[in-house]
């Protein structure tokens, strides 16, 4: 077996599934032998052009191999020094696909790219257009207590923000960085008027967090808000475990990432439900007939007061 053959074995072996171990394997073979260059190896897994592309550093991009040489994780630093992760798969000669990334869906994610540079270029161009989107989400995450998603990323274009114990504010951020579909979840009577006024008087020169804090008069304690949430961080996980859905008795659902929400409008009712659990129950009460406009009314399983629920997100 010549050295090239040994090297091919290293490339294709399952044992060398992480980059450092793989490199060690290659190094032990190449050691002292100048006649073998990485470029001279062809493998049925990847072609040498792909490997050499990964070898040449592109500014602001780091590469790491995943389960095989075909799966590559790129860590990219954008102009604002934010780090983005992008997973790509090598599907064949000049066929690169993006498998997942930390950005909301965009058509270019489905495209096929002929080389790494083209792919990274497209990603950077897209990320550049999302700067206000990133800025607003980052600002919300840094200044507000986020109850849902549990681990917010740029992929999630919405946030459920804690206003008080029983009231959450839902806000979506458009790709241009504007708020949309804002509404309150929970026992929100006190806050409803404020939100309506606030939306009418929205100050477009200010960012979302500044507008929200002035709408709900959170000015004085918005900072203490965050520091408070940081102070309770150590037991945060415990707190989250405690909030279970009054229907499935669990905090997490196996098939979706939503968390139990304070959906009952009765101020004395302390129960949380997964939207999907409550929706399923209210539909069952109606004899299994889904509602015409996506919103169903009924009574709270716990306190029997009127409750309504929609089936979106």
């Amino acid at each position, binding site marked *: 077996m010549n050295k090239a053959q040994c090297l091919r074995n290293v490339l294709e072996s399952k044992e060398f599934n992480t980059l450092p171990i793989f490199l060690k394997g290659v190094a032990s073979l190449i050691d002292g032998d100048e006649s073998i260059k990485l470029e001279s190896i062809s493998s049925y897994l990847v072609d040498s052009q792909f490997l050499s592309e990964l070898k040449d550093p592109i500014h602001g991009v780091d590469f790491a191999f995943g389960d095989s040489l075909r799966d590559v994780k790129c860590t990219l630093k954008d102009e604002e020094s934010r780090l983005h992760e992008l997973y790509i798969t090598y599907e064949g000669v000049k066929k690169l696909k993006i498998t997942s990334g930390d950005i909301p869906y965009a058509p270019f994610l489905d495209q096929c790219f002929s080389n790494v540079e083209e792919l990274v270029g497209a990603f950077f161009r897209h990320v550049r257009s999302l700067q206000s989107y990133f800025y607003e989400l980052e600002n919300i995450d840094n200044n507000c207590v986020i109850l849902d998603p549990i681990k917010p990323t740029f992929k999630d274009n919405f946030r459920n923000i804690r206003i008080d114990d029983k009231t959450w504010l839902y806000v979506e951020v458009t790709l241009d960085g504007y708020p949309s579909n804002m509404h309150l979840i929970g026992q929100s009577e006190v806050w409803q008027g404020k939100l309506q006024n606030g939306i009418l008087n929205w100050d477009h020169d200010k960012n979302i967090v500044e507008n929200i804090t002035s709408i709900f008069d959170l000015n004085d304690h918005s900072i203490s808000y965050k520091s408070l949430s940081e102070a309770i961080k150590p037991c945060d996980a415990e707190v989250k475990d405690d909030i279970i859905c*009054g*229907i*499935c*008795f*669990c905090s997490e*659902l*196996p098939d979706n990432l939503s968390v139990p929400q304070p959906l009952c409008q009765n101020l004395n009712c302390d*129960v949380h439900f997964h939207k999907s*659990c409550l929706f*399923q*129950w209210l539909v*069952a009460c109606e004899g299994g007939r889904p509602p015409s406009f996506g919103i169903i009314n009924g009574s709270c*399983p*716990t306190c*029997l007061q009127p409750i309504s629920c929609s089936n979106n997100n």
Partner: protein
Amino acid sequence: MSPSERRLQKELMSLMKEPPPGVTVDGDQASQNLTLWTIHMEGVPGTLYEGEKFELQFKFTNKYPFDSPEVTFIGNNIPVHPHVYSNGHICLSILTDDWSPALSVQSVCLSIVSMLSSCKEKKRPPDNSFYVKTCNKNPKKTKWWYHDDSV
């Protein structure tokens, strides 16, 4: 694990860990078959059922908790009570019409304990012999007519 199994598993754990007074669940049987539980219940001291022992059977469908459990008294000692038929069927609205997914095995057990405890005279329901002859095996198939809320 299906949502109903997940919930039953959780309920079983908490019922075994912190059972309400006078109530014990047959944990071995229930963990082998999550859809069929046997619960041992003791008559509360100071009530007409003091010193008596009862057995309750819970049957769950895979739609639980959206579908109520089928709950009956089984064994040799069926409590003599105006809402309990001699075949073990119980006339209790939360087991059918008033069921809510927020209820649990524990809350059903407590309702039954309190139903027994508040009894003033040990007697069978007035239509007992007719009902027992004609009823379906499944008490949920009975169109119950809840006569009174006092007991």
